[in-house]
């Protein structure tokens, strides 16, 4: 995934992207090209970096390949519908819906679960991370728990959670929260441990109480690591969510894909996958935006 704000960049028509690849024998006129570039930078958004342009080109390439395969009817539409059909289905999902709910309702249900789980994971994970980072006792108690939980795939404890918490919302939120917890705890703990000793000492020499050191020095120092942990755990939570919804749900993007698969509605499955990817990408961008806004100082001293 790109570090640059790709989604905020003006979309580029495919024809423009293909320009460098179809170079006339005498070459692209240098001056003409540069003036176009200069206009672009001065008038609106900054020029698209080459790397982003290449990435967009790759995506366009995949779409073209997909379209070609379906247009030539190399694969039956039942297995791989055309891009146009999927796009059309996506629109219909948004307007008419699928299995008694519109796309927005499915997406809303999924997002509610993830954010409820994120909240729970933060409420539990941040104090746990501080306990591990600050005290040997806390570390002794919580380290085995985290190390036990971390490597288990959420699908492995999903049946147990369903036995304990039933097949309602609680079970799904619980499974997602369990998947989100370890990254947050580990990131917070390492952030706390990495706090500069000198910064703490300076605060103490200014008369800070231990509670003030925690609030005014350790907490802000830990914020970048905490946001990194949140980013990782959102990824983990989102992938667990879809799995959790495959098992037992009446609404949600994962459920939508699962029921569509039962009807062999491949276009809905593909549309759902695209929505899931888009939302994950949006999460990533949102957290990066938060990082830039609130901890822009990180790594700059």
């Amino acid at each position: 995934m790109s570090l640059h704000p790709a989604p905020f960049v003006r979309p580029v028509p495919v024809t423009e992207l293909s320009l460098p690849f179809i170079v006339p024998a005498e070459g692209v006129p240098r001056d003409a090209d540069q003036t176009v570039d200069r206009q672009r930078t001065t008038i609106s958004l900054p020029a698209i970096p080459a790397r982003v342009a290449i990435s967009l080109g790759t995506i366009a390439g995949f779409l073209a390949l997909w379209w070609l395969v379906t247009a030539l009817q190399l694969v039956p539409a039942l297995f791989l519908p055309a891009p146009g059909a999927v796009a059309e289905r996506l629109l219909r999902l948004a307007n008419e819906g699928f299995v008694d709910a519109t796309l927005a309702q499915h997406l809303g249900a999924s997002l509610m679960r993830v954010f409820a789980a994120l909240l729970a994971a933060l409420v539990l994970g941040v104090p746990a991370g501080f306990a591990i980072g600050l005290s040997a006792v806390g570390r002794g108690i919580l380290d085995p728990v985290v190390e036990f939980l971390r490597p288990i795939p959420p699908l492995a404890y999903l049946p147990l959670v369903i036995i304990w918490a039933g097949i309602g919302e609680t079970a799904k939120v619980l499974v997602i929260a369990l998947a989100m917890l370890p990254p947050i705890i580990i990131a917070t703990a390492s952030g706390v441990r990495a706090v500069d000793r000198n910064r703490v000492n300076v605060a103490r020499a200014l008369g800070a109480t231990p509670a003030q050191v925690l609030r005014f020095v350790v907490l802000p120092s830990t914020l970048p690591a905490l946001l990194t942990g949140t980013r990782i755990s959102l990824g983990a939570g989102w992938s667990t969510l879809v799995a959790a919804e495959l098992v037992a749900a009446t609404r949600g993007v994962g459920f939508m894909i699962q029921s569509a698969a039962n009807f062999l509605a491949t276009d809905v499955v593909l549309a759902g996958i695209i929505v899931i990817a888009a939302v994950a990408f949006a999460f990533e961008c949102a957290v990066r935006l938060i990082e830039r806004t609130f901890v822009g100082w990180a790594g700059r001293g």
Partner: protein
Amino acid sequence: MTVSMKLTIFRLGMRFPLPHGGEVEVLRDVNLDVPAGELVLLLGASGCGKSTLLNAIAGFTTPTEGEVWVDKRRVTGPGADRGVVLQTDALYPWLNARDNVAFGLRLRSIAQTERTVRAEEALALVGLAGKGDHATWQLSGGQRQRVSLARALVADPDILLMDEPLGALDALTREQMQDLVLEVWQRTGKTIVFVTHSLDEALYLGTRLVVLAGPPGQIVLDEPLPFARRALREGGGAKIKSAPDFAAARERLRGVIFAGAQP
């Protein structure tokens, strides 16, 4: 023990346990009396225990033996009566320059308006008037160290402890900063303990020179110095540093250091 002193160090000893058993003696029987308003330069080679001594005065470490007294109170931990400036400026990058300076005031719940006024005063004192809104990463190394000094000063400590504060700066900035320290000392009348491993800095900056040799760190020389007061009187360090008596003092001091310190 003389309790009328600003700072009294009495038979201070410090030993640290080694990871695989045994211990290392870093300081042995260090005694020092510092009257108010003195600018003490603590000079020694690397590893002689001068930073350990400063940490003990600051209260960051508890001495194995002996006592540290500041203003008739025994030091048992860090406190706002002893301000600290370290070699790494240890600024808080999430705060701008002004809020870094005002940090100590915020800890005491002083109102925002007063914090701003006092922080701006301190910034002006270190020659950074108008730079309060700058982020820490927008400041040069010398400017950052000035902010660090202002941050220590704004809390109005009795003693200023400076642990090689100019060690990471380039030579030219370092000379400017030396004169800044002298100016701040003259204007505020603070008692300052300044650690350095530079002979020139030690001779030029202090009103009193204390040489520590070790390990284990022991005081091998303790005498008054004339050059800082002369620099303030005559204004200008370059002339003093090239004067014959400065060079002579430098040669003598070099002899003391290399006689006392193991290579």
